């Protein structure tokens, strides 16, 4: 696993990255190896590569995002692409244009890569069927967020050496999390033991069929865990609908030092951000020495560079 990355860019079987589902362990590991290279590039003063020189990348975000969008923007720019951010929230969509019409319009501008986030599950795949360029899913509803799972895996691998045999506890609002779904798929593909931990109201029906062990209390859910992955709880779900209150949620499911002590002594803490401090995670843990939360952001850029580079092999005339 610590072998030096292969010298040549790997090829993904498809020209799109729509989800972790269907990806093999070999493809995932090759992407992670490529991302290791990108980490090095990003740490140099000269951060530019030329893989995407002359190419056009459009970031099409139907749902507001600071972190993911800027990460994709930086990744594209570091590979030499011309990057354009489309703030769809205040454009044609508001005037009533359908998703397909927006896609066709953009397609006519001949981009090479579309990075798409949409609030509806399956919307990115639908759009991918209608355009002639590569499409990367930057999050569709509560379905998938593949680059988040890849960056999480990269972060874990850099600290634990390998992912197989690790026990990863994904905690909190599993029901409304695309991050959870992509991570469950990826971590299972790489041979980790995956757990989900949360109150039953935040655990979707049939989740146990996705290859996870289900826990409804933190003490048993965190026991022997190598990685504790916390998920964001949306504010509108806190006040008596899915959980009674912030106070009660934090008391039983918020990760603080006391609960973290139930995990392995060398367990590490992750969070896809943005965090609700005092809701799902205590500041002492979020900012503590076992937190990888800052590093996850750095790995995000590297993983997205790797994904863009791998897809570049599918671009016309590549």
């Amino acid at each position: 696993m610590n072998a030096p990355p292969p010298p040549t860019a790997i090829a993904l079987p498809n020209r799109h990255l729509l989800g972790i589902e269907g990806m093999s362990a070999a493809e995932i590991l090759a992407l992670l190896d490529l991302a290791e290279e990108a980490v090095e590039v990003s740490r140099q003063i000269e951060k530019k590569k030329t893989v995407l020189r002359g190419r056009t990348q459009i970031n099409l975000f139907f749902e507001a995002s600071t972190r993911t969008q800027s990460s994709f923007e930086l990744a594209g720019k570091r590979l030499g692409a011309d990057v354009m951010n489309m703030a769809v929230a205040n454009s044609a969509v508001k005037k009533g244009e359908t998703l397909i019409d927006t896609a066709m319009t953009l397609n006519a501008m001949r981009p090479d890569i579309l990075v798409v986030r949409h609030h509806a599950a399956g919307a990115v795949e639908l759009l991918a069927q209608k355009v002639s360029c590569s499409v990367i899913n930057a999050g569709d509803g509560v379905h998938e967020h593949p680059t988040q799972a890849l960056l999480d895996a990269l972060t874990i691998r850099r600290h634990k050496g390998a992912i197989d045999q690790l026990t990863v506890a994904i905690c909190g609002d599993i029901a409304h999390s695309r991050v959870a779904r992509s991570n469950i798929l990826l971590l299972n593909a790489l041979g980790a033991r995956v757990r989900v931990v949360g109150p039953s109201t935040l655990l979707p029906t049939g989740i146990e069929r996705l290859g996870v062990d289900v826990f409804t209390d933190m003490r048993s859910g965190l026991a022997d865990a190598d990685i504790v992955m916390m998920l964001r709880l949306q504010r509108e779900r806190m006040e008596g609908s899915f959980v009674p209150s912030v106070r009660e949620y934090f008391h039983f499911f918020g990760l603080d030092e006391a609960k973290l002590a139930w995990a392995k002594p060398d367990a590490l803490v992750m969070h896809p951000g943005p965090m609700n401090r005092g809701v799902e995670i205590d500041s002492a843990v979020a900012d503590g020495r076992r937190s990888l939360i800052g590093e996850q952001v750095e790995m995000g850029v590297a993983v997205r560079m790797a994904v863009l580079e791998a897809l570049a092999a599918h671009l016309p005339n590549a």
Partner: protein
Amino acid sequence: MLEMTRDATGGRRGNDDRPIVFENARVIDPSRDLDETGVVVVADRRIVAAGKDVRTARPSDAEVVDCRGAIVAPGLVDMRVFVGEPGAEHRETFASAGQAAAAGGVTTIVTMPDTDPVIDDVALVDFISRRALAETAIRVHPMAALTKGLAGGEMTELRLLGEAGAVGFTDGRRTVTNPALMRRALTYARDFGALIVQHAADPDLVGKGVMNEGEVATRLGLAGIPREAEIVILERDIRLAALTGGRYHAALISCAESLEVVRAAKARGLAVTCGVSVNHLTLNENDIGSYRTFFKLSPPLRHEDDRKAMVAGLADGTIDVVVSSHDPQDVETKRHPFADAADGAVGLETLLPAALRLFHDESIDLVALFRALATRPAELLGLEVGRLAPGAPADLIVVDPDMPWVLDPDLLRSRSKNTAFDGARFSGRVLRTLVAGRTVYEYAAG
């Protein structure tokens, strides 16, 4: 939680901690299916032994009581009691409810959250426990609201409330009508085994109804409440209990068909239980007579066929618990035309004597009766009382099952006198009530 506090406070009345031996008693302990003549030994606030084959040495300083064949049974655990505190102290306080309970042989009461303010916060659960401890000699466990402000919208902090001492969650007199909310509450509660208690009465089907729908209502010119108001909610909730695996308890059932629904749910192995008020076991809609508002209850008194079905359901175990549904109302809420009067009747002091009617007419044996009055409710609530097994807390009553008496409302200890048993003739009276080994009531003749 209250248990610990009470034991920790130690001998509030030190002399009462003297061991007691009840001899020549008819010992009833449903936890061991026991009904036999024997001895009950109490020391250190707990049952040392109970039954005929008791070989325990009698403590030399013990008070020895010759029961002369009277019943010694677990103190009653009444799962549905409305107290006026906080907010309506003129109707009932913890002190008056506690005295009524002790006289009625009720050693544990479970209070409903529909007070002012509503018991939907940890601090208020704590308030109830503290007030009760200071004001009464019996045990008081609050149920907390299932939804914030009993508004039926958002669930309360079930888990924190449970840790603070709430033994169950209910919207009291109100029905949780939103099925999505009920589903989520059952799902959430399942994680820590909490009991969700529903008053099954669809408010839209109840409408303006004030008594059982049928011939009597029609003759009286009163709007009827169909049985389906109860059955529709019950069937819906049981489907949700099946979906979620949550623990569901129907607080009060009143219709023959409801028993079929509960029976089927139990046959499927669901965590579904139900209760009935002693009123619905011993009275029917005809008792309303000429618009007597003390018989205006929710659910309403039903047809005699329904009452008979309730008795049968109790005897065969379909009905888990019998409650008083003690609901103090005063002149300002009851002295109205029938349709305008409030629902509810007091019942702490009549729960046992009324229930004993079923024993006297041979509908049910004493073990089954006390199981529903004490043992089973304690099990559902997770309390260690309700049994006479060695080691159990010494919450017990001595009952003369045959002593005749006539109920005089003026002699009720409750602050409110809205009894459905005004002038009733009973056979059976509580002679003595013990809570944690201490005598909290003793009958004085005359």
